[in-house]
Structures are given as structure tokens and as C-alpha cells.
């Protein structure tokens, strides 16, 4: 049994134990969940240390027959791209559990169900990044919706039921299109090499252009909804506004990455020709997302809506980097997924604490926090600076790589995308000014600063943001070979410098 399977199954076992053992002691439940996620995080770091960076093949592979009549296997394995995303998920989870200790207390179904759902979600998140069998991926992809649906609908705030249903239906719609494409490619594989769901084998199929385009679109729309890309984005702000901060972190930080991850792993690897056909369209959508998301973020009065729209802008960058089809763009996009995960996590967690203290998520209800709660204000500021890609913090490296990688192939897109970094200054600094600076808003004088638990939870995130800004090499070393491989397999080579040395 591969170590990968162990990591994947551990949280599920934890969830089952939690569900079966009758206990009303919510502190104990929380500690148990924290323990399980911590163990998983530690093992996943062990997994990373045993990972061979130079090897672009799948590692830690395991394959067992599951439904043999359709040749469906339980097949898992990781390469550089999936490894960093799994690490992102497993590291963020204990942080989220610790940071949102009291979030579930007022939920509809109690504390225990909350952590059962969270743990189950962790298994699914690991599974979705590890699956190398298309059918298995699909199962994880759709199953992931269930815990999130209940987490939003049962523990959120405001219009939570409507937001949860919108999220679920929107995602199911995408998933359905993808299912059609999956069946399509399965049938084609049956005609050519014997029916299979194995990714590596599906990648070598010869598909005629029109069919390939349709299959591609089925996958792409599903991932564009997940990522989300303009104009499929409207579920995200609603979901983020209604979900608890912890759920939002998982939703934006990890789950949405399935969209961009899927674009690389399935859209480009399975359908390189169709990817080429649709690249102009996708780059256009990505650029629109960058600018549109930024403008929308500027106009938000709700802090959660603001973070959601900044994420839409950042997902635009990621998608642009992916479809630029250069090694810089691809590596940058992958790195961006990780960096965005951490900076959004920081923003959402701190915003969550701010909201819990003030009892409001309207930005203008805060004010002068820098003087009342300096630590909270500073951590928010650093996270915000990472969000606007300040050099020296993590997002900068990835944003720069994406822009440079895009410029070498699509200069116009990169130039318009650069406008996004000006707008980023606005959408971060406006809330910073409103919430952290200025005179203290009446009612905020007695807000408590972060307590020890919250400091412990946020410290690693801030640390990662700073370290990855100065020394992104370890992560880039993992990402680079796989990214280069993806670009090469798709039939692209990096544009050469215009002048020869």
C-alpha cells in the first residue's frame, strides 16, 4: 500500500471514529480532529521528502482493480504538480481546524458533524489530486461537493441555504458536462486501445479534431466553473460570503485549485490539440477575469466578497499562466496555486477573526484596528501585501513568472494583465485604509487582539508567505520538471529570446 493511500485514508478513518464514538465533549472532538490533521500533515511532509524531484513520472503509484467489468481501477500517484497541492491541503487543514476553533459551535448540526465533514473532505481533497484514474477522479470530484454543501448550508451565515444550493447546482452542472466527456473518451479508448480510464493511456489516443474539441469543452467548462473563470464565477462570492471563514479557506484555498489543476492534468494532457485551438479564447477569458475580478473587488463593501473577487482575479492569472504554454507560465501558475492558497487562507482567517469580534463583515464597520488590535492588523496587512504581490512575499514570484511567461508568447495579454497589479494596489489598500487605519470606529475600542491559539494558527501561514517570497526554490524545484514536461507534451517549446547570444 502506497504512503499516498495512507495519507488519503487516515482522515477518513478519523471521520468514521468521530462519527461512531458517542461523545458530547466538543473540546475533545476538536482536539481529536486537530490531532488527525496534524498527523496527516506530518506524514505528507514525509511523503514530500521521499519524492524524487528530478523524476517527471508518477510516484508513490498504487493500482488495484475496483470495478473490473469497466476496467476501473483505484489508481493513485503523484508528480510535482499534485504533490505541492496535496501538501497545500494537508498543511492548511490543521491550521484551519486550529484557527476556527469556535466556528462550528453555533452550527445547525453541532460540533461533531462539522469535524466529521472536515475530515471526510480532507480525504476527498487528497484523493482528487492523487487520482490517476479518470473515473476515480470524477468520483472524488463530485463527492467533494457533498461535505462542502453541508458545511456551507449547515454552519454558514446569512443566506446560507441558497448559497449552498447555488454552489451545488452550479458545480453539478459542470460535473455533468465532464461526465459526458469522460464517457466519450472512454468509448473512444475502447475503440482504439481497449476501454480504459487510465490517464497515461488516454493521453496517447488519436482523436479527430471535432470530437476532441467537444470533449475538451466538457472538461474545461467543469474546471472553469470550479476555478472559477469569468463568466462562471457568480457562485463563488455568494458561497464565500455565506460559508464560515474556515470553509471559505478550504473552498478558495484548496477546492478551487482542483479547477486549475484539472486544466493542466486533463484539458492539456489529454487534449493538447484542442487546448491549442481554444487557447486564444481561454487567454481572453483569463484576462477578463483578472481585470473584472479586480474592479469588482474594488467595489465590494463586504470583506468576504472582496476576498472572493480578488481570488477570481488571481485565478485569472493562474489560468493565463497555464495556457501561455511556456515553462515560466506553467511553473508560475503552479506556484501561484500554492501561494494563493496560503495568502487567501491568511486573509480569510484574519477576516474571520475580525468579523467574529465585531459581529459584522462590512469593511466600513472596522476602522483604526491598527491601534486597537495591532497583531491582528499587522497579520492582515502582511496577507494583504501578499495579495497585491509585493516583492519579498510569496505571490510576487508566481505572479511575475506568470506575466513573464505569458509575455513571451502573448504580449498583449500580459500587458493587460499587468494592469491588474495596479488595480491590486487599490483593492487591497482601500480596505486596509478603511479597516486598519484612520480613527478608531466607535464600538471597536475594546476589541481583543489575537489570542495564543490564533497566533499559533496564523504564524506558520505568515512564515510560509515570507519564506516563499525570498526562497521559492524548494517548491520550484519540485514543480519545474513536471511543468516543463506538460508544456513539452502539449507540443510547445519556450519562445527563444529575440536576440541570439
Amino acid at each position, binding site marked *: 500500500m502506497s504512503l499516498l493511500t495512507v495519507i488519503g485514508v487516515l482522515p477518513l478513518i478519523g471521520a468514521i471514529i468521530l462519527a461512531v464514538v458517542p461523545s458530547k465533549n466538543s473540546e475533545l472532538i476538536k482536539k481529536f480532529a486537530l490531532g488527525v490533521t496534524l498527523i496527516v500533515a506530518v506524514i505528507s511532509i514525509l511523503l514530500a521528502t521521499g519524492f524524487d524531484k528530478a523524476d517527471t513520472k508518477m510516484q508513490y503509484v498504487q493500482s488495484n482493480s475496483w470495478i473490473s467489468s469497466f476496467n476501473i481501477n483505484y489508481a493513485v500517484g503523484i508528480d510535482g504538480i499534485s504533490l505541492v497541492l496535496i501538501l497545500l491541503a494537508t498543511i492548511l487543514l490543521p491550521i484551519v481546524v486550529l484557527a476556527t476553533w469556535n466556528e462550528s459551535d453555533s452550527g445547525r448540526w453541532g460540533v461533531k458533524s462539522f469535524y466529521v465533514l472536515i475530515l471526510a473532505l480532507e480525504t476527498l481533497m487528497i484523493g482528487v489530486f492523487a487520482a490517476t484514474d479518470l473515473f476515480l477522479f470524477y468520483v472524488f470530484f463530485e463527492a467533494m461537493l457533498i461535505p462542502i454543501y453541508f458545511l456551507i448550508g449547515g454552519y454558514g451565515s446569512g443566506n446560507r441555504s441558497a448559497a449552498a444550493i447555488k454552489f451545488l447546482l452550479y458545480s453539478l452542472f459542470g460535473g455533468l458536462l465532464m461526465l459526458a466527456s469522460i464517457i466519450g473518451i472512454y468509448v473512444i479508448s475502447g475503440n482504439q486501445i481497449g476501454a480504459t480510464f487510465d490517464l497515461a493511456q488516454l493521453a496517447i489516443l488519436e482523436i479527430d479534431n471535432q470530437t476532441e474539441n467537444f470533449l475538451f469543452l466538457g472538461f474545461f467548462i467543469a474546471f472553469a466553473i470550479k476555478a472559477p473563470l469569468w463568466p462562471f464565477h457568480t457562485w463563488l462570492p455568494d458561497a464565500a460570503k455565506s460559508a464560515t471563514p474556515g470553509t471559505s479557506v478550504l473552498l478558495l484555498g484548496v477546492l478551487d485549485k482542483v479547477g486549475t489543476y484539472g486544466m493542466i492534468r486533463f484539458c492539456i494532457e489529454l487534449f493538447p490539440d484542442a487546448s491549442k485551438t481554444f487557447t486564444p479564447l481561454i487567454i481572453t477569458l483569463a484576462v477578463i477575469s483578472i481585470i473584472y475580478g479586480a474592479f469588482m473587488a474594488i467595489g465590494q463593501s463586504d470583506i468576504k466578497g472582496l476576498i472572493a473577487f480578488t481570488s477570481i482575479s488571481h485565478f485569472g492569472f493562474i489560468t493565463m499562466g497555464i495556457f501561455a504554454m511556456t515553462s515560466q507560465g506553467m511553473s508560475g501558475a503552479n506556484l501561484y496555486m500554492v501561494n494563493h492558497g496560503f495568502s487567501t487562507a491568511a486573509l480569510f482567517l484574519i477576516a474571520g477573526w475580525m468579523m467574529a469580534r465585531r459581529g459584522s463583515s462590512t469593511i466600513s464597520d472596522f476602522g483604526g484596528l491598527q491601534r486597537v488590535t495591532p497583531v491582528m492588523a499587522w497579520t492582515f496587512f502582511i496577507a494583504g501585501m501578499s495579495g497585491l504581490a509585493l516583492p519579498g512575499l510569496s505571490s510576487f514570484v508566481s505572479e511575475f513568472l506568470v506575466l513573464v511567461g505569458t509575455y513571451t508568447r502573448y504580449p498583449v495579454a500580459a500587458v493587460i494583465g499587468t494592469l491588474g497589479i495596479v488595480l491590486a494596489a487599490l483593492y487591497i489598500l482601500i480596505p486596509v485604509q478603511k479597516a486598519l487605519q484612520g480613527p478608531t470606529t466607535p464600538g471597536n475600542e475594546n476589541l481583543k487582539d489575537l489570542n495564543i491559539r490564533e497566533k499559533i494558527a496564523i504564524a506558520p501561514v505568515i512564515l510560509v508567505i515570507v519564506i516563499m517570497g525570498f526562497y521559492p526554490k524548494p517548491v520550484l524545484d519540485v514543480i519545474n520538471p513536471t511543468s516543463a514536461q506538460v508544456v513539452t507534451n502539449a507540443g510547445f517549446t519556450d519562445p527563444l529570446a*529575440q536576440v541570439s547570444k
Partner: protein
Amino acid sequence: MLQTSANLAWLIALPLFSSAILLLIGKRANSWGHVMACIVSASTFTIGLVEFFAMQSRSAENRAVTQKLFTWISVGSLNVDAALLLDQLSICFVLLITGVGTLIHIYSIAYMSLDLDRRRFFAYLNLFIAAMLLLVLGDSYLNLYVGWEGVGLASYLLIGFWNQKPAYATAAKKAFVANRVGDAGLSLAIMIAFATFGDVSFSGIKEQTELASTTQLTAIGLMLLLAACGKSAQFPLQSWLGDAMAGPTPVSALIHAATMVTAGVYLITRSNFIFDAAPTAQLMVVIVGGITLLFGAIIGTAKDDIKKALAASTMSQIGYMILATGLGPIGYAFAIMHLLTHGFFKASMFLGAGSVMHGMKDEVNMRRYGGIGKFMPITALTFGLAYLAIIGVPPFAGFYSKDKIIETAFNAGGSKGLLLGITTLLGAMITAFYMTRVVLLTFFGNERWGHKDEPAESPALMLIPIGLLSVGSVVSGFFLARGEALVHWLEPVVNPLKEHHSGEFLSPIIVSLLTLTAVIIGISIAVNKYRSAQADLAPEKVSILTTAARKDLFQDSINEAAFMRPGQSLVGRLLKIDYLVIDGLVRAVGSVSLTAANKLRTLQNGYVRSYALMMVIGALALIAVIWSVTA
């Protein structure tokens, strides 16, 4: 092969760690934080001096040293090391930054002594020093970019240091956003450079400059100019500098006069190999510099806020430097020379203004000053020395550096040279006018402050740095210009002697005489106008020109009309479109199914008879279908 030095990283690491420590430790460091910050700043100056003397002892070709720290970003053909480069150009900046920086640190101990957040202030100052040193020491555009945005951050934090006042917080934001526009230019320049050369380091690009087409180089040059405009408050991104005076005065002296705002000059000088090969970009540099030098000067004539008057002056003086950098190889050296002398006299003036404010209970309106010279003699003396330096009276520092720029402008050749020469002369005249105005309104004339308390001279901790800086503003020009010391020093970096002089249009003596005449005209107009007793309120009825100058030549109105309001209305519209159209379509899918379901639901009325009727109708329809198919 360049020599390596292990000291360079300390230059950046020391202030960076100090800043981090001060911020992390928090209130516990209140009692000793400022001392540590000063010591750290002084030690960076010491390292700078050590490096300088070591450099001097080497031959001209071997003076540059590098230090590779680690591989920062390496993807595909893009390889960027975190590496530092100290050459003849950067050492000038290192000494200026750490030297003036240390003096201002010391000054701030006294100036900020009553502020509860003094520790935080010093943390930001150290952060600034670290970022600024990284800016001038980075060996590639990308490393420079880190420092470039780092100083922007420090400037943002320091402008908004007293952000309890919403206006100050807004000023900080404005500065950051205007700078970001410039930063976008720099990042575009890096992208174009990478696409063109496959490299982003100075040396790598310099080697290949000749291979690139003029179009490519012009594109890079224009983007670099945009970056310089943002950071150095040049037209059309100049509007933030006046508002930036919201920061504490030492900040205005260090960041918004002596060092950070001159980063644009550094960038263009550092990129001399690009601009020299891109005449169009160079012309744009000259135009921007020319416009800004007049723009700033005109604004300076009407400002009653002493700091804003000085800020306008800074803008104008940097206009001189930018103009000089656009005048080809010889211009770079003169730009740097003016930059260094300006660093002394402008910092001295700002600190002097701070000293006056200290004595005047933070009053900044010059209309409420007057006759302060009697009460604060040392401040007045030092301010006077810096004043003589900035207007360019021989043998003070400004004389050497500004005359050289005016001379180079005249010698640029043809009608362009004449136009530039007259522009710079005009600038010199206006400079003399507004600086004389500042001095007269502040230190001479009738006492116009409305209270009984006489202003007291500032403590020694403030006066000593001012004194040292004013000594610098007296002698620095002489030392830098003696035997063309700086020109020769910078020669390996900017190749000033490569250019063949196309004959002199005007000889240095004539230029000096012309300048002096212009200066005297400016002074006499000012003396004539402000000799008499002044009211403590600004006159209401003034010419259109004065109104325009008071309103900063409508720069904010234009920005608001051109960008802010259209941007706000765009955001408002997008919010509506997003809700009504995009999300509207999604919600339409839901509401259509709901409506359809509601309509169909009326069929389910619960009456057995209607169900039975439907069954009958169904059966009949079925029979009809079968019949029609079989028949």
C-alpha cells in the same frame, strides 16, 4: 571576472533584521529601539565607507564587486540569482543613503521623542534603508524591483505613520497607487527585456544591447521611464509627492527629498546602455524632465505650506536630474552629481523646516511664520546655507551641479539645445524666486504667529545633523566637481567620454553668468514682493496663474476627472452588470424552472375526477396515435 565581497549582504541584512526585531518585539523595545536603529544605520554607513575606500584603492576596471547570495528564481531559461552588485554608481547611492539616513535617524530621536510610536517609526526607517540599499545594490532588474517596491512600501507606511487622520491615510494610499503605476511600467520593462534578451541582469542585457532592434530598446526605455516617473514624482505621475508631506518631516527629508524619489534617476542612469541606443526614449526622458522641472517650480511659487513648497522644489530639482539623464553619456554624471548635492541641501532644508515646525507647534503655514530667524538662529543659518546651495550661488554645491546641467542642455545641439537651455534657465530663475520667498516668509519680516510663546531653538540632537548636512551643501559640489572627480569616477559605468563633443554652443563662463543673472532676477522679484510686512492670510484676489499654481496646476482635478471618477462609475456599473446580467442569467435558469414547475403544479389539484379525466384523455390520445400510425 568581477571580484566578490562578502560584506554587501550585511548592508541590507542589518537594517532588515533590526526592523523585523523592532516590529516583532513590540512595546518592550520602546526604551532602546531608536538607539539600535541608529547604531544599525551608522554601521551600514561604516560598511559603505569601508567598501568605498577599498574600491578607491583598486584600479578603475576592478572597482565593481559582486556577491551572489542564492538562486532566487530559476525556471526554464529564466535564471535570477539574489545577487548584489556594488560599483562606482551604487557606492554613491550607498553613501548618500546610509550617510544622510544616519543623520536623519539621529535627528528623529529628538524630533519624534514625544511620539508614542517612535519605535515603530524607527522600524520603518530601517526597513526603508534596507529596501533602498537593495534597490541600488541589486544586480538585475528583478532584484532592483524588489527594492523598488520595498521602498514604496516603506514610503507608504511612513506617509501614513499618523494615519489616525484619514487625510494622511489617503495620502499614503495615493502615493502607493501612483507608485504602482510606475511599478507596472518597470515590470513590463522586465518582461520585454526577458523576451528580447532572455536575461534580466544588468550585465547580461548590456552585453547584448547592440543585437536588439531600436524598437525593442525604445519599448524597454519608455517603460523604464514610466517607472522612473512613478517613483521620482515626474510628470504625469507627480501628484502624490505633495500629499506625501503628510509623513513626519524626517521622512520627507530622507525619502521624499534625498533618496527614494531619486531612484528614477538611478534607474535611468543604471540603464544607460538602453537609453543610449534608443533616441526616442531619450527624447521622452528629456521632455518629461523639462516639463516637470517647470511644473514643480511653478507650483512651488504659490505654496504656503512650507513642506509642500519644498516638495514642489524637490519635484523640480529631480526634473533637472531626469532631464540631464536624457542628455546622453555626459548627462548621467551631472545628474548624479546634482542628485548628491541635492541630497545634502534638500535634506538640510527639510530638517530645517522640521526644526521650525518643532519650535512653532507643528505649524506649517508660512503665512503664520515670520521673523523666526531671531529666535532660531542656528536653524536659520543652516537653512540659509542650503538656500544658497539650491539656487546655485557660487561656490555652494548647487552652483556646480546645476550649472553643469544647464550647460549640457544648451550644448545638446540645435533648437533642441536652445529650448532646453532656456527651460533650465527659466527653472533656475523660478527656483530662486520661490526659495527666496520661503526664506523671507519664514525667517524675516513681521512676526505673524498668533500666540505669545516665542519659538525656541531645537535641541542639539536635531541641530547637529542639520549642521552636518548644510556643511555638505556648501562643500560637496566643489569636491565632486573638482577635476571632474565624479565624471571620472562614474566613467566605467556610464562611459561619459565615449561621446564625441559636437562643439560647445555656449562656454561654461557664459552659462554661469546667464544662470547667475536669472537667479538674481528671481531673487529680486521675490525680495520686491515679500519685503514688506505680510498678512497672516493668503490673499484672496490673485491672478489665474497663482490660483492654478495653488491648486497644483489642477493635477488632482485632472486625475480625478480622467481616472478616478470614470473608474468609480465603471466599478459601479460592473457591480450592477455582475448582479443583473451574469448572475442574472444564472438565476434565470433557476427561476424559469421554478415558474414552469409552478404552472405544471396546478394540474395536480387533488381532485380524483380530474385525474380520471386526464387518464381518459390520455387513453384516447394513445388510441388516436396507434390508429393514425397503423391506418
